[in-house]
């Protein structure tokens, strides 16, 4: 559903009378700390997002990503640290003056207003001098509803439309105030798998069309990989790594990122002279350039672990057909590893002995 974005963009993004075209702004966060009681939700977080960038805040629940988003919107406040939006320190700017678009996880639509009134809300709250005329508001709301592809729902109430449609209303409502920065808290969290996939591509296309700087929170790595220009991987209130999806995947900054992305197998090893020797039996050593000697941790994604009929250091536990071949779980010594079956091994049997080799892995000092 909804993969294409209709031709004309939002008219107002090119309105010359409002000064320079309002595209995305830069967002910088430095030393941001937030405590909830004794627990630290954010711990000296630094992040610099370029104008027009689409950034994912990715991490397990409780890693502080929603707190960061709420602080950017002015819905929560840091204990220390600076937030700059468009170069301006917003510490003393209340949420209602930040002009930041926020899409809530459960949408927070006004339940007593219909879709039209929900979207028009931000415009109607403007001071009289800056408030557009009724006709202009109607015009803009219609254009927004067309943009999010639900023009027919104008008169419906939030309780009468589906989750995906509510999501679009929430987005249109946030876009109505022409925010230079759009924040989305788990935008697809409450939707079922089929709907999310379509919406992902649509939202990314919409972002490219509008050019608004966007940050979204997610715990789904596929979602982050597919949509974001850069991903901030968060853990325990810190940004563990902030880089492009390809770089985060290829060069994880630390064992946490390596383990969190791609459901990697975690293998203990000993590093000596730039070689990592695995503790599990029968696995060949791998080069580990630049890793200091001593105990190490290696992370190998399932596609990097190969099971083949040649050899006997492992045993097949389960076999699962996958679009790209056969995924197997193999027991090696005391451990169970996610692996793929070698292409020349068409029918591995449960319980069969096999050879297991780690083809490549990310190695860190433990």
């Amino acid at each position, binding site marked *: 559903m909804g993969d294409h974005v209709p031709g004309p963009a939002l008219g107002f993004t090119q309105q010359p009378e409002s000064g320079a075209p309002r595209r995305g702004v830069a967002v910088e966060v430095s030393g941001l700390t937030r405590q909830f009681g004794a627990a630290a939700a954010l711990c000296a977080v630094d992040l610099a997002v370029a104008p027009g960038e689409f950034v994912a805040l990715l991490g397990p629940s409780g890693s502080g990503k929603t707190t960061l988003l709420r602080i950017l*919107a*002015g*819905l929560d406040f840091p204990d220390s640290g600076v937030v700059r939006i468009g170069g301006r320190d917003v510490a003393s700017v*209340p*949420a*209602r*003056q*930040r*002009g*930041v*678009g*926020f899409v*809530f996880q*459960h949408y*927070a*639509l*006004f*339940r*007593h*207003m219909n879709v039209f009134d929900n979207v028009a*809300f*931000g415009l109607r*709250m*403007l001071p009289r001098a800056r408030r557009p005329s009724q006709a202009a508001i109607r015009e803009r709301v219609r254009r927004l509803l067309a943009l999010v592809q639900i023009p027919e729902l104008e008169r419906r109430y939030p309780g009468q439309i589906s989750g995906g449609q509510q999501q679009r209303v929430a987005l249109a*409502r*946030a876009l*109505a*105030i022409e925010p230079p920065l759009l924040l989305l808290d788990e935008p697809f969290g409450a939707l079922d798998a089929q709907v999310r996939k379509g919406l992902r591509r649509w939202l990314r296309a919409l972002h490219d069309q509008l050019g608004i700087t966007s940050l979204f929170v997610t715990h789904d790595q596929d979602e982050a990989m597919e949509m974001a220009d850069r991903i901030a991987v968060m853990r325990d209130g810190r940004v563990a790594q902030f880089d492009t999806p390809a770089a985060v995947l290829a060069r994880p900054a630390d064992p946490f990122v390596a383990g969190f992305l791609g459901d990697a197998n975690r293998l203990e090893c000993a590093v000596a002279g730039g070689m990592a020797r695995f503790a599990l039996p029968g696995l060949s050593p791998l080069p580990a350039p630049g890793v200091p000697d001593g105990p190490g941790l290696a992370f190998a994604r399932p596609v990097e672990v190969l099971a083949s009929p040649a050899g006997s250091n492992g045993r097949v536990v389960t076999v699962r057909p996958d679009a790209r071949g056969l995924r197997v779980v193999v027991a090696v010594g005391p451990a169970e590893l996610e692996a793929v079956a070698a292409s020349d091994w068409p029918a591995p049997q449960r319980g069969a002995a096999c050879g297991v080799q780690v083809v490549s892995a990310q190695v860190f000092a433990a």
Partner: protein
Amino acid sequence: MSVAIRPAVAEAPWVRRFVIGAAVLSLALLLLLPLLAVFTEALRRGLAPALAAIVEPDALAAVRLTLLVAAIAVPVNTLGGIAAAWAISKFDFPGRRVLVTLIELPFSVSPVISGLVWVLLFGSQGWFGPWLEARDVRIVFALPGLVLATLFVTFPFVARTLLPLMQEQGRAEEEAAATLGASGLQTFRHVTLPNIKWALLAGVLLCNARAMGEFGAVAVVSGHIRGETNTMPLHVEILYNEYQFVGAFAVAALLALLALVTLLAKGALEWLTGRRQGVETP
């Protein structure tokens, strides 16, 4: 012959009939019969004497005073109740639970004590009594005392009806309004108020019913000056003590009508919103 199978979690039909019968009977005896008695006694000698007792000058003065007291007390407690419910449900601050307990405190204070506390402050031997007397200001045995006593007993009603609803509704919609540029008053008017209006109306109705019907608290501060400090419930007592039974029951019937209208309106609101409004129960 077939055996009727009943669900495992249902009682036998005769038990069911017995329980329903007993419930209906006890409510009828306990609640309906007294109500019926009031109207019957009021109309014992026909409609004319009952009406005459209501339009008699002292009775009319009592009606006017009752309306005046409610017209002052209800808006004050409505405003306070809204402010309290907003502050407690939309913000985190230390001592919120204590605040809720204190707001509900008047519910567990005897009506007589609710009047007594004002006499202790403003009576002739009260803390501020001599000072007020020297300046010829009357609070107790005058309108201000009646208003204060009524304010005390009706204090928690609006806050009590709004709080659970507003806490359940959470803050997300208000936060959304804030990110969209709405001010505090705009947020309350356009977002919060529409969500709570029926509960608010129910709270105001209940507050009003109690304000107009309060007896014990106002009895203590009234001084029972006919035509001056007599509210309708107090007028009922005076008439009864003077053995003017028809008059007493006629005014009582008027008050009972007020109660019935309140219950009816509350029932309509519940039907409208599909939600039961708390009265005094948690």
